[in-house]
């Protein structure tokens, strides 16, 4: 059904059809640039995922998949509401238009709110590479491990005294190595992420640096073992890509709010202006599309269980008794 569109035609266009087609074309071109913008980041991610699959799985296992899942549905629903908004504008139902725009904006704000909570929790858990300090639990665990290393180093050195020749030299070297290792300062992020991963029951990997150096850990290779330094790389992608997505959403929410204000002022009473809602929806759908790819690549790479996801979400919004 093609309605009668009425509205002012800009001075440099010949007719409404030309104007509408040009506006749509402009937005689609902007979408193409956005595909390439995020595409570049996705390609970089793909490169490192290819090179470090196990470490990326580990990184993913440390993320809050509960919030991410809820956010997915919020965003999908908002795509529906903004599509309905176009139809309302087209058929001159400005009240419905206002309501749909409002709903879309609220869903977007909810997404952003949960994301902010997620970032805050990452901060509390000390998962910002090079910036975070040791969390209390990590500090404890690290201290205990280092003490064990130092003790083992002492023991080896003592044992070396009871042996002779090359065997003694070997034992003594190993003892010195362990004590030097115990004296090294911790890398905050690495220790923090080890703690977070230990809380994920579905994740079976162990940190490689503990494999090589530590005492008492089984020597059998585990296919999920990870290098915490490369998990930092994963987290840089996590922050960059979700950060860029958040930035786009903030802009989108801002534009939606502005369109809502315009609706209240009667700007869309000329129903030819539905094209601006349409163009906004293209942007919003694109942001949704990015999330569709981003979410599985970042959050569903590593092992999680549904139960754990629900627990994590509850904890994030404070629905459980306490931390």
């Amino acid at each position, binding site marked *: 059904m093609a309605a009668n569109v009425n509205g002012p035609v800009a001075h440099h266009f010949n007719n409404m059809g030309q104007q509408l087609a040009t506006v749509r074309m402009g937005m689609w071109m902007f979408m193409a640039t956005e595909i390439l913008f995020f595409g570049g980041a996705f390609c970089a991610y*793909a490169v490192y995922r290819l090179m470090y699959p196990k470490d990326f799985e580990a990184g993913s296992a440390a993320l809050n998949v509960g919030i991410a899942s809820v956010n997915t549905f919020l965003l999908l629903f908002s795509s529906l509401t903004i599509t309905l908004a176009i139809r309302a504008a087209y058929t001159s139902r400005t009240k419905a238009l206002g309501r749909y725009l409002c709903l879309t904006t609220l869903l977007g704000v909810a997404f952003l709110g949960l994301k902010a909570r997620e970032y805050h929790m990452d901060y509390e858990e000390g998962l910002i590479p090079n910036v975070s300090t040791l969390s209390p639990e990590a500090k404890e665990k690290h201290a205990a491990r280092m003490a064990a290393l130092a003790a083992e180093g002492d023991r080896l050195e003592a044992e070396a005294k009871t042996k002779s020749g090359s065997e003694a030299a070997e034992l003594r070297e190993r003892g010195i190595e362990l004590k030097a290792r115990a004296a090294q300062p911790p890398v905050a992020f690495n220790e923090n992420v080890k703690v977070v991963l230990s809380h994920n029951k579905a994740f079976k990997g162990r940190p490689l640096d503990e494999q090589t150096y530590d005492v008492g850990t089984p020597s059998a290779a585990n296919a999920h073992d990870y290098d915490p330094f490369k998990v930092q790389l994963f987290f840089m992608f996590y922050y960059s890509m979700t950060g860029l997505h958040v930035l786009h959403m903030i802009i989108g929410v801002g534009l939606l709010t502005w369109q809502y204000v315009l609706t209240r002022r009667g700007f869309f009473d000329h129903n030819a202006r539905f094209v601006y809602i349409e163009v906004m929806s293209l942007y919003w759908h694109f942001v949704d599309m990015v999330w569709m790819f981003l979410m599985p690549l970042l959050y*569903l790479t590593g092992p999680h269980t549904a139960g754990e996801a629900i627990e994590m979400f509850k904890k994030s919004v404070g629905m459980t008794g306490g931390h």
Partner: protein
Amino acid sequence: MDHDHHPKTDVHTEEAVVHDVAAPGPTFVAFFFIVTLAALALFVGFSDGLGPWKLTANLAIACVQAGILAFYLMDLRQADKVTWLIAASGVFWTSLFFLFTLTDYLTRYLGVL
């Protein structure tokens, strides 16, 4: 200007001044499929069975979701050829970037053959 009465015909008398804006029916159906696929993706993500195929499955689901979104909710189905060209160009050029860059990392360590 006083000469504006002159014929304003242009080569772009648009074929349809406005095409049909998304009717509610297909919109809801598309939305339903997208949400179902999202749930499926979560199911696959939380399960252990697929092993190395989990990535492929998740990406495939995302591609189908994106396709439904573009086709139905972004109105690509009714759009003109230029719009299709623009959307396809975005995807095509991104895939060029992927192709060459990934080839570097896949072949770099192969040694002299």
